[in-house]
């Protein structure tokens, strides 16, 4: 195989992979175990600013930080960047608020087997969003490179395709074997939102089920806001240290938000609310109805609990809990 004419993707690299800057930032970040409990409103106000680059934990409709995403719309944050590694309902929420103007896209505008989001598509087809193309593995490894503190990782995906052509990756020659490889640059987001099963007040977090990319996102991001189903005693963390996925020093803010992944699935707790997600997709087909739907469910609700209450409250959660456990 030839390693002549190594190519570079023509997509925009939104975030610098400079590891010296990242090291300096992570070095000065306070590592005292302090009580980080706060509110959704305050956490978003303090940590996310217009123009910031946001990474979202979970898998689109699984273990997603819904309360924080709604708050981004309520506070009308603008010109955000975000990484769409299987961004489904999360992409749909941010699109509803037109909160971003650039996106590292591996999977956007769709909701997997449920269909495509009319509103997110409208936005991405308008030409107003700057998009750089990636694959799920490429974005995962970009977070991993950042978490490792190296400026890139070599991999064997995306080669030879338009996905590569419109990415910001580069072909390189392996210094050992001479093979052609793809270098994906470290991605250090400004802010990450992650929903977890359990956390203590310092931000030590436990996650059940799949991790998606959240272990690496937490280490890669400059600021991490965690919502948790439950706050647990610090001693519980110390009793089973093997369960800690995110250590406290990564985390800036902790908020207890029970049922916080709704209408997404929370592994072991409740299944996704397919009726409500279908309603989102249906309302999007008519822009006026959709605007009213967003006003009612997000803009005119005080917080996540009002939204949950509007859509069935604890009875709905009970039903989704039963579905989750195949009852």
């Amino acid at each position, binding site marked *: 195989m030839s390693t002549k004419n190594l190519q570079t993707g023509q997509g925009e690299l939104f975030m610098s992979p400079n590891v010296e800057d990242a090291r300096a930032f992570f070095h000065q970040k306070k590592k005292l175990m302090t009580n980080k409990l706060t509110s959704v409103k305050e956490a978003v106000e303090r940590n996310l600013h217009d123009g910031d680059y946001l990474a979202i934990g979970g898998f689109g409709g699984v273990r997603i930080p819904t309360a924080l995403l709604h708050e981004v719309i309520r506070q009308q944050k603008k010109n955000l960047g975000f990484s769409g590694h299987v961004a489904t309902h999360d992409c749909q929420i941010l699109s509803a608020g037109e909160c971003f103007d650039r996106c590292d896209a591996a999977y956007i505008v769709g909701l997997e087997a449920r269909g495509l989001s009319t509103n997110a598509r409208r936005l991405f087809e308008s030409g107003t969003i700057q998009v750089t193309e990636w*694959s799920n*593995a490429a974005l995962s490894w970009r977070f991993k490179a950042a978490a490792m503190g190296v400026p890139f990782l070599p991999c064997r995906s995306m080669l030879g395709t338009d*996905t590569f052509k419109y990415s910001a990756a580069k072909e390189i020659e392996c210094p050992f074997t001479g093979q052609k490889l793809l270098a994906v640059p470290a991605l250090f987001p400004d802010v990450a939102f992650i929903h977890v099963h359990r956390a203590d007040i310092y931000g030590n977090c436990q996650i059940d089920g*799949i*991790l998606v*990319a959240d272990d690496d996102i937490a280490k890669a991001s400059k600021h991490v806001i965690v919502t948790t189903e439950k706050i647990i005693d610090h001693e519980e963390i110390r009793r089973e240290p093997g369960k800690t996925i995110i250590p406290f020093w990564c985390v800036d803010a902790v908020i207890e938000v029970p049922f916080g992944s709704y209408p997404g699935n929370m592994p072991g707790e409740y*299944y996704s609310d397919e009726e409500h997600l279908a309603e989102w997709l249906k309302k999007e087909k008519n822009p006026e109805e959709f605007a009213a739907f967003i006003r009612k469910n997000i803009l005119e609700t005080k917080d996540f609990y009002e939204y949950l209450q509007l859509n069935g409250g604890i009875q709905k959660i009970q039903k989704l809990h039963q579905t989750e456990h195949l009852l």
Partner: protein
Amino acid sequence: MELMVTIASRNLEDGAVVVVGTGVPCAAAMLAQMTQSPNLTILFEAGGIAPLLPSMPISVGDSRTTYKGLKSTSMAEIMEFCQAGIVDYCFLGGAQIDQYGNLNSTMIGTDYNKPITRFPGSGGANDLASLCWKTMVVTPQNQKRFAKTVDFVTTPGYLQGGNSRTEAGLPVNTGPYKVITDIGVYGYHPETRQMMLLSLHPGKTLDDVKNNAEFEILIPEKYEITEEPTDFELKILREKVDPNGLVIGRK
């Protein structure tokens, strides 16, 4: 649809490792596991390893994908298994496929910055087709989908044919394996890497093959007629795999 799912499932031998998505691929893997391949290892790209699927997931990351599984992990680790050569098969779909098995799931149009229609993009498809040994595609066949040129190569097939896939740096001896449609089953010419007919479904004709593709599909002198699903396969498929007709009820 029952025929397509059944043929797909017959391609998954016992002891194989397969990464699947929701819908048809998942139904095929479940059917294989409940018939000839009880030791089929099913992986989901979001991190689910070897679940005993109780029902079809709606997301490749939802709780069903780890039900009674052996491990739940990260997307990176699943992709690393693929890159390390552990995974035999992946199953993909797409809006368009060309004669070399390149897939488009990103956009329709000619201007990347202003697509006529934007689709989700690669997701894990590019990675899986780059890194797993054999890529299977299950798709309805018509002129629009079997395109002379895809608008965007999201996911690599044999790229420009011949040796171009290996020359691009993709792992040696990997690539498109079969395409299963409502008309027939196709493979690829060992040298040119053009799509060619392997078997024709009962009741379908060579004209159906030709008239439902913009590119020329190679027709070898010998090809087979697809074996219909057995009563046993249909029973398992209808009663256990997809009792609600989510996949097999689709046209």
